[in-house]
Each structure stands twice: as C-alpha cells, then as structure tokens.
C-alpha cells in the first residue's frame, strides 16, 4: 500500500510552491494594493505613508460628468459584442455544418479563424488603413454604390458599431469552431429518423440541430455575462482618438489615462476597484448559473 503521510505528499506541495509565490506577488499583493483607492497615493511615499482620504476618490469619480458617459459606452459596446458574438458564430456554424465534409468547409474554417491570432496592434493598423475616409479600401468600395465616405473611426455615430463589428470580424471564426465541434457531436441517426418522418431541412435544423447544441449555447451565454464591463481595452485603445471619446471611451481606457498619463493614481485605482468589484460579482453569478444550469465546473 502507498504511504499517504504528509512527508510522502511533500513533493506535490513543493511543485506548487513557485506558482504560489508568483501568484502571491503579482496577483494578491496588487489586490491589497487596491487600498490605494482610499489614499492620495504618491509613489515616493509608498502605500504606508501616503495620505488617507477616505471616500474622496470615489466622490470625485462619481461627480465627473464623463464617468456616466464612459460607463454607458462600456456597457453598450460590451453588450452588443456579447449579442453579436453569440448570434453570428452560431449561425455560421450551422451553415458550415450544412456544407458537409468538403474542401470549401476546410478553407472557410481556416480563413475565418485566422484574424483571431493577430493582435489588435496589427489589426488596428490594418483597420486604420482600410477604414480611412480618404484612401481606405472600404470607402472606395462603398463609393461604387455612390455612398459618401464615412469616417468610421472618427465619427461618434459610427465608432461604437465599428468597434463591435470589427470585434465580431476578428473573433467569430474562433467561436464558430466551438459550436461546430458541438454540432458534429449531434447523433446522425436523429437526422435519419427525421427524414423518414418527412421533416425537411429547415425542420431538421430547428428540431434537431438547435436543441442538440442548446447546452453549449446556454453555457456560452451564461459565461459571457461576466464580460459586461469588458468592452475590450486592447481593441479600443488601438482604434480610438480624442475625436471619439464621447462614444468610445471605456472604463479601461479611462483608468489608463487617469492613472498612467495624468498620474492620479488614487482616482484611477478607485475606478479600477469599482470595475473589479462589479465584474467579480458578475463573473461569480455567471459561474454559479453555469454550474446550476449546465453543470459546468471551473475545475
């Protein structure tokens, strides 16, 4: 029999040690550092000697007129991304599944999955070029239909939708593959039985395909709830400009500017803490729901 004493277990605990130390330093210490939100933090004085100001930083934040606009922008962009990020990949996965095993299917899959692996720096550069109102490819294309050039990245009416659409463009291929995997797992004999019963393709999709992937749809929807305050820093940061702060500035970009550009560390931390706490609640609820509804466990 195996010895189960602590001495025997020791190697396992030692294996965990380096990871525990790193996570402690770079994840848990910053959490404690969150108390900067209640200080007038000055880096040279450090966490222990900076002045405590109570809730001043929060009062300042909530009195900023920009704050509510930015909060709205964040939620608006994030929710649109969640909705389209669910509908588009599910639709495309169902359509791709109809193609059957073919060269076309493989090529389409490969190509739509590609943008996911490029960073927003690269794709930001690409988009700035093709969306340009003067020489951009897209506006030249729209010109064929005599549509006047649109300043996608500089016009407040267009900017949020440009962000949402380009995010869908980058990520839909990635999610499509998840749904496609779920679709191939649907039992083929169900379709055979349906044909014998005289069900057409539309009915097969509606009564077999969709119920077949419903569990994963529910799971993905539930888990995406945790992203309501994540409008996508990497993307927005590389595409926005002061011209579109009104419609495109989000919590994360505001935190960056207040904190690292203006050096108002306390205020930026307060805003960060505000976001972290709400996100924490949302993510916890979403995991709990996913566990209850879909029996999903993180580990």
């Amino acid at each position, binding site marked *: 029999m195996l010895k189960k004493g602590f001495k025997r277990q020791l190697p396992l605990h030692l294996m965990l040690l380096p990871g525990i130390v790193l996570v402690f330093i770079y994840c848990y210490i910053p959490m404690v*550092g969150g108390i900067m939100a209640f200080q007038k933090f000055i880096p040279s004085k450090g966490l222990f000697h900076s002045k405590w100001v109570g809730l001043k930083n929060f009062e300042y934040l909530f009195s900023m007129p920009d704050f509510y606009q930015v909060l709205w922008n964040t939620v608006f962009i994030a929710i649109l991304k969640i909705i389209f990020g669910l509908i588009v990949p599910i639709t495309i996965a169902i359509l791709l599944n109809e193609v059957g095993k073919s060269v076309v299917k493989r090529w389409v899959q490969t190509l739509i999955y590609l943008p996911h692996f490029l960073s927003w720096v690269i794709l930001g550069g690409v988009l700035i070029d093709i969306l340009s109102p003067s020489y951009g490819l897209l506006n030249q294309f729209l010109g064929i239909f005599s549509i006047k050039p649109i300043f996608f990245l500089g016009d407040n009416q267009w900017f949020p939708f440009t962000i949402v659409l380009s995010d869908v463009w980058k990520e839909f291929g990635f999610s499509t593959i998840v749904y496609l*995997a779920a679709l191939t797992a649907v039992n083929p004999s169900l379709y055979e039985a349906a044909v014998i019963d005289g069900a057409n393709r539309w009915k097969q999709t509606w009564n077999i395909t969709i119920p077949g992937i419903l569990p994963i749809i529910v799971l993905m929807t539930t888990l995406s709830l945790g992203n309501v305050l994540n409008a996508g820093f990497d993307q927005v940061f590389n595409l926005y400009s002061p011209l579109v702060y009104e419609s495109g500035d989000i919590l994360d970009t505001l935190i960056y500017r207040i904190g690292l550009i203006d050096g108002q560390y306390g205020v930026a931390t307060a805003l960060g803490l505000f976001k972290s706490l709400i996100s924490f609640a949302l993510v916890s609820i979403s995991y709990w729901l996913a566990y209850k509804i879909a029996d999903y466990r*993180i580990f």
Partner: protein
Amino acid sequence: MVEGKSLGLKLFRIFNYTLLISLAVVCLVPLIHILAVSLSSNVAASAGIVKLWPKDLTFKSYAFVLSKGEFLLSLWISVKRVLIGTVVSMLLTILIAYPLSKSGRELKFRTGYAWYFVFTILFSGGLIPWYMTIRTTGLLDSIWALVLPNAVPVFNVILLLNFFRGLPKELEEAAFVDGSGYWKTLWRIYVPLSMPSIATIGLFTIVSHWNSWFDGLILMNSQNNYPLSSYLQTIIVQSSLTNMSAEQLKNLASVSDRTVKSAQIFVGALPILACYPFLQKYFVKGMVLGGVKG
C-alpha cells in the same frame, strides 16, 4: 446529413456557399490589401489606386523597415521574450497542474490550492496597483517584467489538469511500485503522455507572448526595451515622425508613411501568418478542448 433534391435546397446551397466564401474573403482581403500597399510605390499608394495587387512593385519599404536599428532590436527582444516566457510559463503550468490533478486525499488542501489560483480569474487588483507592484519589485525595464507577472496562466493550468486527470491511474501506480517518486512520475509518464495537450498550450502561450504589447508599453520606460509589438504599437498606431534621424527622413521621402506602415504591419503579422497553416490543426484542437472544458 441526409440529402434531399428540391429546388429550394439547391437555391439554399448556392446562397450558403456564396455567403460562407464571402465571409472567408472578408477575413483575408484586408491582409492582402496591406501586403499590396506595402509592395507598391510611394506615388501609387498615396494616390489610393492600390487594391489587391501591388502597383510598381518595389521592396523599398521593407528595406527601410529592416534597416532601422530599433526595429531589429525590438525584434530580438520579442524573440527573447517568447523563448523565456514560454519556457517559464509552461514549466509552471505543468508543475501546478500535476498536484492539482490529484484527489483531495492524495494532496492535502487541494481545494484550497485550487481556489487560490482560480480566485485570480475572478478578481484582480486593477491596473494601477499591478503596475505599482511590478515597479516596487524593481522589474521595470527588465525582460522579466514581461515574463513573471503573467507567468501563471490559470486557464491553461485548468486545461492541463483536466487532461492529466483523464490519464489511467494504473500507469502512475505501476511507476510507484517501481520506486519512482512524484517528480519522476511527472516527467517520465505524465509529460510524455500529454505531449499533444502540452504542445497546444505551448503554441497558445507563444502566440500570446508574441502579440502582447500593452505590458511592454507601460513597463518599459526606455523605447530600447520595447518588444516588437509594443514598438509597432507606437509607430503604427501612435505614429510619430519626430524621433527619426535626418538620414531616415531622407530615406522616407522615397517611400511613403503609408507603405512603410503597411510593411511594418505585415512584418509583425508574418511569423503568425507563416506558421498558421501548419499549426492550425493544433489551434483548432486546443480551442475545442478549451471551449468545452474551461
């Protein structure tokens, strides 16, 4: 799926193929356009007449980009970062996943340990305290600032630990009977048997290190320490002609800002574009693994 042969079905098929192929084209065309612009002459690019094929083919923009010292320096830093970062991160992933794949009886406090790591997905201290911590630990301007703070990818740990759990228990028991300890069992049995998963996770780690730009931007005070993607961020997106030498400005006259930017974008994307066709199946596999399990 069972085939039918009605007219409606034929129409649907035509529609379906057209839609899917257009989507694939929409994903590819922007990249081809950028490539075409980068290979075109200054005049053609500025006139906006380049579409998907280079006009007056020239490699001047690439020569200009590749002759810049900062570009090569940042490329070197990126290579270093990917190598060190991937090795460190993979080691940690394996070392954490293995103990956590054990039952609570075999590893005391297992649930506590697991929550210790998972909690970091749920809650974070935010950007500023994170930055201040790294600053206080003296990592600013060091390559380790790009490696250590994100060295424990919890999602990958969960992925690998689920894979470890799926391996037959008997193998490990046999190794114990032969006198192997946990360390030996991990390296001799678990790691070799999990190579497909480890390779997939490794690929994702490489890609994410190559693509990371924000940490470089804020954690490096000197531009000389920027990895390539941070460097590209400053010149493609922030775009400054101010810090160029007189000679560079003269060279720039024969190429245009637009063709140079396009060349830089393409060079930044090239390693991923070049490997993608070969590694795609691993990516798909990892994706499915990750999507379903964690």
